[in-house]
């Protein structure tokens, strides 16, 4: 069974999810990776919600759209046809680089899901449990397939400052496929697989 999630995602829908579940997401989500996470934490969170005046419009937009919303760790390949942006390839990037920021962003914006690849660490897992959120794993490298599920590029923010891969792309997705690998009940596929493989490694290199 595939769980269909629509943004904004209610807490009950998150609590119904467990590791291993397949989901499809629809609605408006934002790409955000290294530069965007650093920016959100420095501008919005460390200032207790008092960013520089120039950053207010984006802050208000994110407060609205990320409330119950979704962040996607992705730096897409894009094309512009007749003034309209289009996603050409848009698989996930490695998520663990955002481990130092993600829990703060989940709490501050009431984020309900983070999509990426490779999984995240204990800080993010704790935030998923405390604030009712999930980590969703998309298939790394599946750039063309996922781009097909991006039905509209609504807007892009910080394009000039951050560049194409690092900008906030505001996109409408339909049926974006992913697997729950960290749930709101404290379970993480990544922690389990790491523990099992490390035990096996010890066996394989036993003197």
């Amino acid at each position: 069974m595939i769980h269909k999630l629509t943004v904004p995602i209610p807490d009950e829908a998150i609590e119904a999810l467990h590791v291993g579940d397949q989901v499809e997401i629809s609605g408006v989500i934002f790409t955000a990776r290294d530069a965007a996470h650093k920016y959100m934490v420095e501008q919005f969170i460390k200032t207790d919600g008092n960013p520089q005046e120039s950053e207010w419009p984006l802050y208000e937009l994110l407060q609205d759209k990320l409330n119950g919303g979704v962040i996607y760790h992705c730096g897409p390949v894009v094309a512009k046809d007749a003034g309209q942006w289009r996603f050409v390839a848009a698989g996930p990037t490695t998520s663990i680089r955002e481990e130092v920021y993600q829990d703060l962003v989940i709490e501050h914006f009431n984020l309900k899901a983070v999509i990426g690849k490779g999984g995240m660490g204990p800080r993010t897992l704790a935030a998923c449990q405390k604030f009712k959120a999930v980590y969703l794993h998309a298939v790394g490298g599946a750039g063309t397939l996922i781009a097909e599920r991006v039905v509209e590029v609504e807007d892009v923010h910080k394009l000039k400052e951050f560049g194409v891969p690092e900008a906030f792309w505001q996109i409408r997705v339909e049926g974006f496929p992913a697997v729950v690998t960290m749930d709101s009940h404290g379970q993480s596929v990544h922690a389990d697989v790491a523990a099992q493989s490390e035990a096996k490694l010890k066996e394989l290199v036993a003197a």
Partner: protein
Amino acid sequence: MQDLTQALVELIRRTSTDLPADMELALREAREREAAGSAAQGALDTMLVNTEMSRAKSRPICQDTGTPIFEVHYPVGWSTRKLAAQIKQAVTIATEKSYLRPNAVDAISGDNSGDNSGVEFPTIHFHEWDEDAVKVDLMLKGGGCENVGAQYSLPNAPLKAGRDLEGVRRVALDAVTRAQGQGCAPGVLGIAVGGDRGASYAFSKQQLFRPLGDRNPDPELAALEETIKAQANELGIGPMGFGGETTVLDVQMDTMHRLPASFFVSVSYMCWANRRRSMTVRGDEVTYS
């Protein structure tokens, strides 16, 4: 000297959008080994569907079109300076055509050059040879798998890895375990033993141009390639780190001379989107493989 710019753009397009047949076959075989309905099998299915879509639509397999690494073999009398200029021009055109993502950023400020131009970017290595043809090998190596590559200086006490093939086996398995699914498993390992640090890493990447299943002519090294492949798959990390039967699709290694004082083992990890292709120019004839 010919202008190869347009031929190079086509090489980049093919490399970015058309996964080589040996990789696609290996992914199909891996799919059959995973439990029906498992997350691992689902991930492999997604990879295979994506591979077909990218090829049909001529779009990048993966949005991280990586560091373009060019290995250029050229005949006596060709200008490497002019060839480099043509390669850089082709990379810029391929970026405009969205075969490549603008992927070169200033090391400190992070400012994106916008067209994949940059200091020592893309990577180009020239090799003069005796053939009357130009052969260009191209690999697009993404950041996720590049970040999980590792270099070990042996002996390594925690892993009890000495300066011998058993030590190489130990550190290679350690690298795969540390990588987990982060390098977009199932991947391919290129391993170099010897050299200085820089040469060792470069040589490990050259192994990744070998076709899957190609074994080192040295029977001892060939056996070790097989052993590391089998044992890496016993780790159970599986496709995308979801857990499963296939973590690596192949392991290819080779040795180079080293200093008596140094014993480096470099492990380059290539993701499942193992994009590498070749172009040969002989007279007016251009062939791709």
